């Protein structure tokens, strides 16, 4: 049996340390000074959505809230802005997960795209309610790129779970 992503075989369970590591890496990626690049996606949002879909028992609303507050702090944004968006995204992704996982990765991306756009739009909306200027439509490029990255990221984050259960010395992988 070959380790392809199309196979419907049972995956190995996700490791908690790997989930934690991926979220930490996403946080670090978000902290790079990339404000001028509108194309840079919100890595935390992307990774959080992935784990909410896959492992809602391990990554719940509490994690989303915590990451949101950290991102608010790191971005110099209003406290609670990212937290609200992440909590709602996590809830929506979790409730979508039963249906989402039946589809191949590209169609999953189509399902998850509205969540990214709503989460980004919500942050802009709540800041405009609080008296901010509209920062321009360029802000919606990031959720678009995040959608495009969904299949790649899913592949990468699932890679450890695709490892074969038993090692065979004669097999290349």
């Amino acid at each position, binding site marked *: 049996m070959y380790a392809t992503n199309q196979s419907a075989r049972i995956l190995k369970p996700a490791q908690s340390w790997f989930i934690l590591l991926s979220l930490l890496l996403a946080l670090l990626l978000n902290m790079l000074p990339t404000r001028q690049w509108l194309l840079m996606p919100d890595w935390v949002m992307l990774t959080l959505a992935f784990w909410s879909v896959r492992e809602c028992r391990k990554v719940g*609303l509490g994690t989303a809230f915590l990451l949101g507050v950290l991102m608010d*702090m790191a971005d*110099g*944004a209003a406290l609670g802005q990212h937290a609200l968006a992440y909590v709602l995204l996590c809830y929506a992704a979790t409730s979508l997960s039963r249906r989402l996982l039946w589809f191949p990765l590209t169609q999953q991306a189509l399902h998850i795209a509205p969540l990214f756009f709503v989460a980004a739009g919500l942050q802009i909306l709540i800041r405009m309610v609080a008296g901010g200027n509209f920062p321009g439509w360029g802000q919606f490029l990031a959720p678009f790129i995040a959608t495009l990255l969904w299949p790649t990221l899913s592949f990468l984050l699932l890679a450890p779970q695709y490892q074969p259960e038993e090692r065979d010395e004669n097999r290349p992988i």
Partner: protein
Amino acid sequence: MASLDNAPPPFFRRGPTPLAQLCFYVACSLALFVLDLRFQALEYARQGLSLVTEPLRQVAQAPMRFLNEGSDYLVALEKVQAENDALKATQLEAAPVLNALPHLIAENERLRQLLALQSRESTAGDAASILYTARDPFSRRVYLDKGQQQGLTPGRPVLDAHGLIGQVTRVFPFSAEVTLITDKDQSVPVQVERTGQRSFIFGLGNGQVTLKYIPANADVQPGDILITSGLDDLYQPGFPVARIIEVSHDSSDAFARIIAVPVAAVENHTLVMVLRPRPELPPRPDAAENAAPNHKTPARAGQRPNRRARGG
């Protein structure tokens, strides 16, 4: 110890329902949002959180910094020599003025004493370098590599080599947040250098500032330089702030619409100077009469000058 029949096995125990959790966390987020933006009540929480996010940020930015410093170390000799030559030339050009300056300052001091004027404040500050720009697209803020530990306080003005770039608005233990003068919520009391007309500039959020409350018939032209007027407890007088680029009159409005661009390289710079707070100004006459029952301390008053400016 609960017996088996009234305590479900751990497999079924999953805490509150997702909807209840959602309501709880959304309420928390909204409460944080309102407390932070409306009441500015979470400054201590921010300082605490910065102790978590600052090390993370340094880890995140370390590879880039090493690369930059490494490449600087290897290739920069020629560049440094050229820069050195340029700086020497600049210093030579400035030498006549600089050499005469101590004399002029002393003379100015003597003249002011003769005229019984208040002497000018001395200017001193702490150099700091800019670490990064805040990612928040709604504001124009940068972060400095110095904070409470190095004695920074909110309200201090920040300059670069050409003029004012902003004001320290928050300090964290090891970093400080500077709101640039182009931020939408930032205002600076200024005067037109040529005519002495006083007013305020407000940030527009797009790299420009606007000069408000200038009558439509006032003598203001494109090219005029705006300097800080010093009519507050924060900015010392005389620092260049912006250059006017556009003056237009709208017949429906009693004030002219004036757009200016900052003279300092507000959006791209690395080394800045954080000025010391101004010495306590003499109390206002009415405040002195009332023995100043609720006189604000400069640091508190300095945190949000924009609100005072708007209110007044």
